């Protein structure tokens, strides 16, 4: 098993460890170091809903081609969790490398792989790590060994450590010592694992940064003028608010009093209630939650829609229904959020798919919420929100905040008359007056009950019907204002792939794989609901479209079928959710399957209902 040529910059590593052991830090150091070497990286953290002691896996992909979807195969395994080691080993491809602690009881029982037993205890003894910190320092050992095997540069490691342990020199020192000792051991250890996979310096990551979507959203919200935040902790959304809280003093210092009020509410009902109250009183207000919180917010979402109050709600999706899998990723809330609330409700939803979009949507959500006077949902997910992605730095906004139609006391003096919900401009959007506006005409009593144009309680059938018709006009306005889909047309393609959010990397890589298999495709990544005209056009111009999404029921497909009934039977569905981000080969295979089925039966039966 000696290989003539090393595989350079195109491979993946899985580190299988125990959560609460600090392995996540080790993985981040590794990822940062490779990124420092200019090589594109992506990482997927598969962690349990638990604080300490349960299995966790980290998959690090290195790809000079820039592929960042979860890899289907990882030829390097760090088998540092004896509880899962046999299963993990079974996933390793032939000729794969398996690192494991020499001191443990577990040993890999496969002859077609390259085992490498690491004397962890010995290395830690060498460095003199105290007993208490050993479980932690153990993880830095595999970082050092991998650094040696892959040829990760010393400067890159140092920079990575500095970024990771910002301003804590003693931490850097300890970790560096462990890494160096492990590196030294590995360098001296004769093993076929050497030289098989290598990281070579590139310049593909220059000017880029590593960030997670929750942090991007937090910075976006602070840039977008958020003034009130109310939230209730829930994985995977908590870190969005916690990032916001930690960036607040730096980005929006409280020189003359706080510029943003953050309140941890007693539950999600209260969280959205506070946001609705704040939006009503004129602040840009937001909350972040996940599935169970969304369900609890249903009644207030309906109030916001019907009383026409701006609000921004981030749903960082996890696997549902119910409590589901709190630490796994999914795209399963699309339908329930779109229709959130009894009666005839339908909401505006933004669907970011990159770090840059998490940042920009966080701002735009406020603009849209205030322009449309309605709750705006942003559907992110655990993969986007909590995993680390490469990103271009975010641009400082060049447009002023769009604060929508608000009448001042002076405006009212000029106008002499005021009706909150009069559709003066024909776009379905009335003019607000903010509480505190002293003009005698300004005050109304906002309400979730039926009302006439002047916001006065009314049970009159016409008032109700007209109001609902106006709300539909507003929905049409929203259709024009939300971000356009990201479309890539391949002129030779008769097949279109449609998706949204975090599946973009898998879909885009799958398109290359499909092309290699002779299937040309165009692609459309939906950026928002309600859909615009481009969506219908894209579908109309392709013979078949396949909607790829990470849920069971094909929720985006359902909404697209409703939007384009004439093309309903030409919309295929690849809907899959098991908590893991999709891989490109899986998408390729499923798309091919789906196309075959569609060609066989020109008459498709619905599965959506």
């Amino acid at each position, binding site marked *: 098993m000696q290989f003539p040529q090393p595989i350079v910059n195109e491979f993946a590593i899985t580190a299988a460890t125990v959560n609460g052991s600090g392995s996540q830090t080790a993985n981040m150091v590794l990822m940062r170091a490779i990124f420092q070497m200019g090589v594109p990286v992506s990482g997927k953290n598969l962690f349990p809903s638990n604080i300490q002691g349960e299995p966790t896996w980290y998959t690090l992909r290195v790809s000079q081609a820039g592929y960042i979807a979860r890899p289907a195969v990882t030829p390097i395994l760090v088998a540092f969790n004896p509880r899962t080691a046999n299963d993990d080993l079974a996933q390793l491809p032939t000729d794969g490398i398996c690192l494991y602690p020499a001191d443990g009881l577990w040993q890999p029982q496969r002859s077609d792989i390259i085992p490498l037993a690491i004397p962890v205890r010995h290395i830690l003894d060498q460095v003199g790590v105290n007993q208490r910190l050993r479980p932690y320092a153990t993880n830095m050992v595999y970082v050092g060994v991998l650094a040696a095997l892959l040829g990760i540069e010393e400067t890159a490691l140092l920079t990575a450590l500095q970024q990771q342990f910002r301003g804590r020199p003693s931490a850097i020192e300890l970790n560096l010592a462990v890494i160096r000792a492990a590196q030294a051991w590995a360098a001296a250890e004769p093993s076929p694992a050497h030289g098989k996979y290598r990281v070579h310096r590139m310049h593909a990551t220059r000017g880029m*940064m590593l960030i997670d979507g929750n942090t991007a959203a937090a910075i976006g919200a602070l840039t977008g003028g958020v003034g009130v935040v109310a939230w209730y902790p829930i994985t995977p959304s908590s870190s969005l608010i916690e990032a916001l809280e930690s960036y607040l003093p730096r980005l929006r210092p409280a020189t003359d009093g706080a510029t943003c*009020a953050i309140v941890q509410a007693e539950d999600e009902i*209260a969280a959205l*209630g506070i946001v609705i109250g704040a939006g009503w009183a004129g602040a840009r207000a937001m909350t972040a939650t996940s599935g169970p919180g969304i369900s609890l917010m249903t009644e207030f979402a309906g109030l916001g829609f019907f009383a026409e109050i701006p609000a921004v709600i981030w749903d960082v999706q996890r696997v549902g229904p119910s409590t589901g899998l709190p630490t796994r990723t999914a795209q399963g809330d699309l339908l329930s959020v779109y229709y959130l609330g009894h009666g005839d409700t339908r909401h505006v939803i933004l669907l970011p798919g990159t770090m840059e979009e998490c940042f920009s949507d966080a701002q735009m959500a406020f603009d849209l919420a205030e322009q449309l006077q309605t709750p705006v949902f942003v559907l992110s997910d655990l993969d986007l929100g909590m995993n680390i992605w490469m990103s271009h730095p975010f641009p400082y906004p060049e447009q002023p905040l769009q604060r929508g139609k608000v009448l001042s006391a002076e405006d009212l003096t000029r106008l002499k008359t005021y009706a909150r919900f009069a559709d003066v401009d024909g776009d379905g959007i009335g003019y607000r007056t*903010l*509480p505190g506006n002293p003009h005698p005409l300004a005050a109304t009593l906002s309400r*979730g009950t039926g009302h006439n144009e002047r916001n006065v309680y009314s049970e009159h059938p016409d008032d109700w019907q007209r109001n609902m018709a106006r709300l539909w006009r507003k929905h049409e306005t929203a259709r024009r204002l939300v971000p356009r889909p990201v479309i890539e047309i391949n002129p030779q393609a008769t097949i279109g792939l449609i998706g949204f959010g975090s599946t973009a990397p898998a879909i885009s890589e799958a398109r290359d794989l499909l092309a290699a298999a002779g299937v040309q495709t165009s692609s459309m990544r939906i950026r928002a609901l309600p859909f615009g005209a481009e969506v219908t056009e894209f579908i109309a111009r392709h013979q078949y479209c396949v909607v790829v999404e990470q849920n069971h029921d094909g929720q985006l497909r359902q909404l697209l079928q409703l939007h384009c009934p004439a093309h309903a039977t030409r919309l295929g569905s690849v809907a899959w959710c098991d908590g893991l981000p999709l891989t490109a080969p899986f998408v390729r295979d499923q798309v091919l399957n789906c196309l075959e089925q569609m060609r066989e039966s020109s008459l498709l039966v619905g599965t959506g209902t």
Partner: protein
Amino acid sequence: MTHNAIGLTKADYRGAPSTLCAGCGHDSIASQIIAAAFELSLPPHTVIRMSGIGCSSKSAAYFLGRSHGFNSLHGRMPAVTTGAHLANHTLRPLAVSGDGDTASIGLGQFIHLLRRNVPVVYIVENNGVYGLTKGQFSATADEGQELKHAGVNHFPPIDVCAEAILAGCGFVARSFAGDAKQVRELIKAAFHFHGAAVIDIISPCVTFNNHDRSTKSYTYGKTHESPLHDISFVPHYEEIAVDYEPGEVRDVQLHDGPVIRLRKLNRDYDPTDRSAALLLLEQARSTNEFVTGLIYLNEHRPTLAETLGIGNTPIAALSENRLRPSREAFAAVMAELLGER
């Protein structure tokens, strides 16, 4: 006086005509809200009317028509009020709620609002029933109480005042809707208080709190088997009025219903002792009395806006340059993320 200090008349503090039943205690309270706001010369636009859902909450439409307001969701007004306060802490929320709204569905939000000390004047229009849904028991109904349509209540009542004290509320009072003067004075005092102020006002529901047997009532004089027992007919009642002195006890006959015993706190009662206040409520509970007056007072807690360090300008009025990072601060964060520092 027909004009107050800011030149407004009482009419300027009125709202839409009430649609509540004639004689409903909530209307009596609305009148005193109007009177108090007028006498305090509150600029209408500095008050926001907040309410949930119920007859009591509907009544937010019947006073302070020139104040902005939000008739929100059943039991969830505290959250909406908290948000409004955070967005604009220069506005004073005046909240009206019912016992169902506050003590049944809304109990959690009520207590958490008080813990945060949102400086609201929070009036519970307490009739022990759900008026708007036609007379079911609320969580403040007396144990053993019997209502014609709802049967017997088997569960101990929630004491809104005791809950408020436990939650850290610094102004806790109780009154009776028919005691115009006390209601008005308490509302005025509450507006002067710096923090959350709760006033639990017994406010008879003339339509549904019409039982004639109850652990703490004498049987209503006349037995009258008549079309009156037709649920679709709501006879007209007069609002009840009482006027009594500090230290006095007054039995009040509710319409077609029970007698309640009110005990007005003595002038020398010291409301600043938290344990004593709780004990007082416990005692009143065991003797089936309602003590009225200011039960507990403690002005030492900061309001939520103060706790969070909000400055003079309300967040809703912050200019764009304070709502956005400076170019420099933004650039610094980007540089750090890029690993440039």
